[in-house]
């Protein structure tokens, strides 16, 4: 498989009055063409910042400290705004968390999709473009499975349900046939049934359009159905990355264990849900060693002193924890075999 997107040793900081916030610290990963990569972690761990930095949508007080972003073999790290504008929409586009703030409440949804379509096809402001644009809008609305697109064309965002609005946002993102779709928590604002519908739709569109998707989420349970690979982020770093099977059936990083164990499915029949103790560290002065060490019940002495490197488990599975070092004590994962006996009832 070819790498569509490659991020190499990327570090991003925000300059604030309180000091420098290191939101993303030395992150490397690659996105193959035609796969869904899920980016999972608690809020504030840098998932959204990472996505926005790929699109170069970050505010003025942020800067890329080091590292490269390579799209399709071309290094876009130093691209200026005009060059980026050419890439946005047809190479990559983004779906945001809250569809209500993305859409303009005073314009019909058809027009909003049409705006994206006309810009992407170069028809913006041209005469007699409206018929072509209209056709394409209806086609997009059908693609995201909106019933009666001709009628819905004239609806305002507030007249649609949350799931429907998210579909409109998806249609806008798909207007330029992007190769990479960055979905930043697309289902967090939705309830369970709609969430599974939207994720299924995302998977279907990804297959049909042969796109690559980066799916950001805080819920390891929700992304299990669609993700091909999973990357777990903590305090601005990727701590574990691997195929979905590897991360769910054979997780190696204590933080991944914690995330999995805090799902209610794993606490069935127990008196209390598992929670990860403590709070994530502030990223203004991140701790010297492993950022997770102070919340980690399996922490070793070296965790407080030195940052663990990425240990290779298989060719696709890597984790950053000293527990994988050959001198470390062998610890059996507390969630290893549990996945298999969770909920046979449904």
């Amino acid at each position, binding site marked *: 498989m070819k790498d569509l997107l490659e991020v190499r040793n990327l570090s991003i900081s925000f300059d604030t009055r309180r000091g420098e916030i290191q939101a993303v610290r030395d992150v490397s990963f690659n996105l193959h063409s035609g796969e869904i990569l899920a980016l999972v972690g*608690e*809020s*504030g761990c840098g998932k959204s910042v990472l996505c926005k930095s790929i699109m170069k949508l970050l505010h003025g007080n942020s800067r890329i400290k080091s590292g490269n972003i390579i799209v399709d073999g071309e290094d876009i790290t130093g691209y200026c705004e005009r060059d980026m504008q050419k890439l946005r929409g047809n190479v990559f586009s983004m779906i945001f968390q809250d569809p209500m703030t993305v859409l303009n409440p005073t314009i019909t949804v058809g027009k909003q999709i049409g705006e994206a379509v006309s810009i992407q096809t170069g028809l913006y402001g041209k005469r007699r473009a409206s018929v072509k644009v209209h056709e394409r809008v209806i086609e997009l609305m059908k693609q995201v499975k909106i019933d009666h697109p001709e009628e819905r064309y004239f609806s305002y965002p507030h007249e649609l*349900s*949350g799931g429907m609005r998210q579909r409109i946002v998806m249609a806008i993102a798909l207007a330029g046939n992007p190769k990479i779709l960055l979905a930043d928590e697309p289902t*967090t604002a*939705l*309830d*369970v*049934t*709609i*969430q*599974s*519908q939207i994720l*299924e739709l995302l998977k279907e569109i990804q297959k049909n359009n042969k796109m690559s998707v980066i799916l950001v989420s*805080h*819920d*390891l*349970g*929700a992304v*299990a*159905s669609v*993700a091909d690979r999973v990357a777990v982020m903590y305090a601005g770093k990727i701590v574990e990355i691997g195929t*979905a*099977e590897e991360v*769910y059936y054979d997780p190696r990083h204590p933080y991944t264990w*914690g*995330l*999995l164990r*805090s*799902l*209610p*499915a*794993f*606490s*069935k029949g127990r008196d*209390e*849900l*598992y*929670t*990860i103790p403590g*709070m994530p560290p502030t990223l203004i002065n991140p701790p010297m060693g492993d950022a997770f060490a102070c919340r980690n019940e399996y922490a070793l002495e070296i965790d407080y002193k030195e940052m663990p490197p990425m240990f290779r488990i298989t060719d696709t599975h890597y984790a950053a924890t000293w527990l994988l070092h050959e001198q470390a004590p062998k610890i059996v994962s507390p969630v290893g075999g549990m*996945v*298999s006996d*969770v*909920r046979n*009832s*449904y």
Partner: protein
Amino acid sequence: MSEILIDVQNVTHHFKLNRKTAICAVDQVSFQIKKGEILGLVGESGAGKSTLARCIMNLYQPTAGRILYKGIDTCDRRQFKEHKKMLQTKRQLIFQDSTSSINQRMKAVDIIAEPLRINHVHTPRGSARAEAEFQLHYVGMDAGCLDKYPPELSGGERQRIAIARALSMEPELLVADEPIASLDVSIQAQIINLFKHLQKEHGFTFLFISHDLAMVEYLCDRVGVMYQGRLVELAPTRDLFSNPQHPYTRTLLSAIPLPDPKRERNRRKGVYDAQKS
């Protein structure tokens, strides 16, 4: 366990769109909550869960039906006025979005102590500040947060302050309207543990509204399922999850995501359509 605290009888609530049309948000719903029970209410957004909660809390006046709280008809104006103080202190509500339900310009201590001041409640621990500190400690936060403003706190901490505010009146009925929907999974687990622990100690009656069935299964004694304004199924948690009767309940159960990629990929997810069945 046997005493009935709240009795909802055929409650209907309409929202008028214009002179001719109205939306029926809650349609002929009846159920009872026993004292000391945790009742979960699930359903997709727009099912009328929040409207029902607001009717119970007297924030909306139901179009038809009665809601009896300890035998007092709260929808009747005269009876409400007679027991106003008791009704307003002994029933408390926690909202979904803690950023908008908490005043951003008040310190945590003032937020928690505000109900005490409004209701002129005698503070058993001396001052309002001591009371706030006690409640804050109770929900698992330390006194250092007392003088902080909400924007300085994380989402989970803000939600804890909202819970502490509700608890400061020592309520008998606590209604929580999607209290964990906007939180991270690990924080959700903390809040759920907190609710379970508090309920055990205080013994208050709890109406828990959520769309997350997995959490509801863990927390609640009984679960009601709402669909398009109607209560379609109400059963003890174990029965509902092992033997769902209504097709919509089955659809909801099939939508719970499992942390198991292989099985999840092959699972068939149903879509429930009221017109078809």
